[in-house]
């Protein structure tokens, strides 16, 4: 029983870095993703094209490779980060690319009539986006954003490659030390608990933003 408690506490300590990476990545990649979506939709060709290139690179290569690149390859050109900032940079750029495509699709799904109504009422582009388009977009993109957010919880386990002791790496260390699979089960329960909380939160958000739909 003591051993079970000890294992659980170790894994709990490992969840701290998991949750840090998760929360910081989400907080940075959502706004960056929105900016990238607007840039991708920009009428200025070069901005749109460059954003497309960025999205292609981030979605087209493994997140693991991006982590390794930031940590091991960037120092070769004189840019050196500690493991945590390296992980945050790679995660944020990667997730922002996925969010950008979700937001772009969401923005494009809003009927042209909404823009026209806002325009004939004299609203500027920024007012139209902020007051009319984005509030409706958020409601429509919540399900795919929820998907990505849940993916992010699990993707955080990749940071073991930068020798950070996240939830899964702690569990694996214990399993390899004790030849006892219990730690894996506990780790699984931790991930499920986190995603359960997220699922519940997104349900609440959908209900909040959906109050005008019938």
């Amino acid at each position: 029983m003591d051993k079970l408690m000890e294992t659980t506490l170790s894994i709990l300590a490992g969840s701290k870095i998991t949750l840090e990476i998760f929360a910081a990545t989400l907080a940075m990649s959502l706004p960056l993703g929105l900016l990238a979506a607007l840039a991708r939709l920009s009428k200025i060709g070069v901005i749109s094209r460059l954003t497309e290139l960025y999205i292609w690179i981030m979605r087209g290569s493994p997140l693991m490779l991006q982590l390794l690149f930031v940590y091991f390859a960037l120092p070769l050109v004189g840019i050196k980060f500690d493991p945590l900032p390296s992980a945050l940079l790679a995660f944020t750029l990667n997730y922002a690319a996925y969010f950008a495509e979700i937001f772009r699709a969401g923005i494009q799904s809003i009927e042209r009539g909404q823009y026209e109504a806002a325009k004939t009422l004299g609203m500027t582009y920024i007012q139209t986006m902020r007051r009319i388009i984005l509030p409706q977009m958020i409601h429509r993109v919540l399900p795919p954003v929820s998907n990505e957010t849940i993916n992010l919880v699990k993707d955080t386990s990749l940071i073991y490659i930068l020798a950070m002791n996240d939830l899964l790496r702690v569990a694996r260390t214990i399993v390899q030390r004790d030849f006892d699979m219990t730690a894996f089960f506990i780790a699984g329960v931790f991930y499920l608990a986190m995603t359960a909380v997220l699922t519940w939160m997104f349900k609440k958000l959908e209900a909040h933003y959906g109050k005008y739909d019938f």
Partner: protein
Amino acid sequence: MENTISNGELMLEVKNIHKKFADADVLHGISFTVRRGEVLVIIGPSGSGKSTMLRCLNRLEEIDKGSVQVRGEYLAKEVDGSTVYAEGDELRHILGSMGMVFQQFNLFPHMTVLENLLEAPMQVKKMKREEILPVAEELLRKVGLYDKKDSYPARLSGGQQQRVAIARALAMNPAIMLFDEPTSALDPELTGEVLKTMRELAAEHMTMVVVTHEMAFAREVANRVIFMADGNIVEQGTPEELFGAPKEERTKAFLNNML
């Protein structure tokens, strides 16, 4: 009534406007004027360019040639063979003098009826909520939907939504109202309430340009009717002239089909 209008201020002066889309010529040189308090109704078969023409008046579509003047100010004019649009404050001022009602209502679905009315005055004109609130509530009473002020648009019938859309446009206090087939998306039993609201607006001498298929409305409310076909004005005149004694074969054929 006729006389006061024919001497009234020139609200719209459209000269020789042309519009091409990638695949088709839509407008071939349309010219007309609208004076203060006048109700101009534009009729014509589908694809005749009447909606496009209306959308050229407030720059939802840009013209390729010609000029559009709103209360003496140029929205668009030809300079050395190319069309130049007003810019900045001047453009905002011109567009701000026109309100528009769409076939698909285009209410903001995430806002209540009242919020739909408050939005533009507060965001665009920077009015305080307490300044615009009584105006908005009065407009909702006028269109008979005050009791729906806290409902979301999805809860309303099409006719109710369109009346809210009219009130929303009026909340910006426009000098000219443009209606783009305002009853075409409505079930027949709901068109009456929208036409009634428009009739009341006309009775208050609002300057209106209405694209519609409602011939009875055109006949009763219009001061002048334009019949368009294939991107041209085929014939125009008072409702008595156009419906009573159409001159052109094209007009006669269209009216025979409609009535």
